[in-house]
């Protein structure tokens, strides 16, 4: 019961507590409570299915930000082997909101790069809550160029509230750093696979996200602005964040429908944190499959397809006749 539960999980948590109490009582008093337990467990199962199969966008936001959710390093340690972290952008400093280095995916060397959040306040001072400064993006680009040099695929793991909005970040060119990553990721000749594993926070997420294949974990979100930010600007009140989350279409299923992402990677029922090993296994299988598929294409073909994919992004009409693109 150490996992903190979310608002919509209250009923589930209560039932779980009830089952635990009954089990404890049965053990202590040597009573036979198997039947009652089975009934309760069936009810719990139904309740969980009901809750997690129909999550609202704002509930998924809560899961995507869950403090127990696996972060980039958890996936790197779990789904990859032989990880050697590389540090620094060679220009200013090492930004620990971004991690990256060589690793093996089913034996094959890849460059893996991700946003890294901290688990507690102390870690978050180092990791800046997963919000990179320009040097984080420049480190990522340095590592991508390294992968390019040696012809190894690149895997990025996206999980950030956004690029850090601060004085130093602006002085050192946050906009330029993101823009350069977008352009240079477009130009890479090696296979690139990006996975949104938690929060895909706007430009700060996209700066690791221009790739041949973009995948999203089932409960991850990806949006142009946080629901809170959107609500504050368009509805003039933070209280409208549910409406904003709904209106902006930020869930994995929505983005797949819009053609922005290529695949939704399933999570264990209740979210990746309820069974991290399963989440890691699902991610490894999906990423390995896409890398293998991409490696069968020539570098020219990969780039052509990547460019065409981004050239198609968006929906517009041409007057006077309304034509879908």
């Amino acid at each position, binding site marked *: 019961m150490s996992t903190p539960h979310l608002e919509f999980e209250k009923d589930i948590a209560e039932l779980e507590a009830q089952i635990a109490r009954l089990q404890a009582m049965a053990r202590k008093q040597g009573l036979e409570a198997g039947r009652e337990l089975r009934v309760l467990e069936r009810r719990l199962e139904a309740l969980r299915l009901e809750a997690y199969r129909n999550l609202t966008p704002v509930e998924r936001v809560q899961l995507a930000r869950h403090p127990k959710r696996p972060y980039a390093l958890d996936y790197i340690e779990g789904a990859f082997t032989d990880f050697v972290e590389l540090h620094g952008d060679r220009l200013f400093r090492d930004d620990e909101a971004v991690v990256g280095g060589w690793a093996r995916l089913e034996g094959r060397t890849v460059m893996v790069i991700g946003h890294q959040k901290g688990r507690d306040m102390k870690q978050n001072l180092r990791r800046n809550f997963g919000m990179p400064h320009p040097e984080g993006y420049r480190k990522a680009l340095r590592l991508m160029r390294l992968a390019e040099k040696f012809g190894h695929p690149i895997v990025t793991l996206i999980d950030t509230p956004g690029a850090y909005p601060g004085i130093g970040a*602006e002085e050192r060119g*946050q906009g*330029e750093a993101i823009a350069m990553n977008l*352009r240079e990721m477009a130009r890479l000749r090696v296979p690139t696979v990006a996975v949104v594993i938690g929060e895909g926070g706007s430009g700060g997420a996209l700066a690791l996200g221009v790739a041949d294949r973009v995948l999203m974990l089932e409960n991850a979100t990806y949006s*142009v602005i946080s629901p809170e930010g959107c609500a504050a600007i368009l509805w003039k009140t933070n209280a409208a964040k549910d409406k904003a989350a709904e209106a902006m279409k930020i869930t994995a299923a929505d983005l797949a429908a819009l053609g922005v992402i290529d695949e939704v990677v399933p999570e264990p029922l209740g979210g990746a944190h309820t069974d991290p090993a399963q989440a890691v296994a699902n991610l490894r299988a999906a990423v390995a499959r896409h890398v293998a598929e991409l490696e069968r294409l020539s570098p020219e073909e990969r780039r052509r397809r990547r460019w065409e994919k981004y050239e198609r992004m*968006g929906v517009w009409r041409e007057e*006077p006749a309304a034509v879908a693109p």
Partner: protein
Amino acid sequence: MTWFRKEKQKLRAADRRDLPTDVFDKCPECGEILYRARLEQNVNVCPTCGHHRRIAADDYIRLLADEGSFEETEAELRSADPLGFVDLKPYTQRLEAAERATGRGDAVVTGLAELEGIPVALAVMDFEFIGGSMGSVVGEKIARVARRALDERRPLIIVSASGGARMMEGILSLMQMAKTSVALAELHEAGIPYISVLTNPTTGGVTASYGMLGDVNLAEPGALIGFAGPRVIEQTIKQELPSGFQRSEFLLEHGMVDHIVDRRMMKATLARLLRHMLGLPVPAAAAEGGAAEPAAAAAAAEPKPTTPRARRRRNGRPSREERSAD
């Protein structure tokens, strides 16, 4: 209990509008009362303090394109409301209102033109259209004009003015950053020059894509240019921002733009840069005149700031402590 009540008469906006505001105008920077016709003749740069007012996309095109050379392209593109987005107002209503107000289909005008005789592809953003925000149409028009630049091997110039991505198109607006950057990657590989001109304000998704990707980045004086907006930064770091923060002069100091160019010198500066990048000779007329260094010329054309506020803004630099605060 009152015996009679005096009807309160509100000042109606219509009464005020009857004043001859079309003859004189007050500079928001130095407070000088300016003769409107003279201001317009001066491309909306205050003759006293050099403050650059925002101008419409059409006016900027007139400023840059040789007379009669501009041919608009992709004028028929319109936003399609892909998400059926409704906040306090439906997105479609916002679009209609913006089109009525600006006479433009969306927040950017694109086309082909000649600039001092050099064929160029040109895109100029219009801040008056939903804050110059970038949605699918802006992204598509930028991508298409870049494609024309690529096909016809014309240099590309984009004049930006934008609050960032258009939230009402959700993730699709974010993807326009990727789309435009991909288009510029192709241009980059083909060795075709791209110059980014940043005007007040350019923030968010536009800064973090084509705004900052110029082979040369130019900025108008005093323009707000940045990734995060100043309000967001203030709320995050919980302190007041130094004066001059995120202004053109601050970006020049930090190495993010190549030049601050007075609007009155913008065309000549662009032409000189393009001729260098394209390997074109100095035209006979300019060679005789002994064209000056663009920045120096711009500085000469620009009178010294006269008010303390204007001076502070121009010279405003964050102090050492403020800079290391973050």
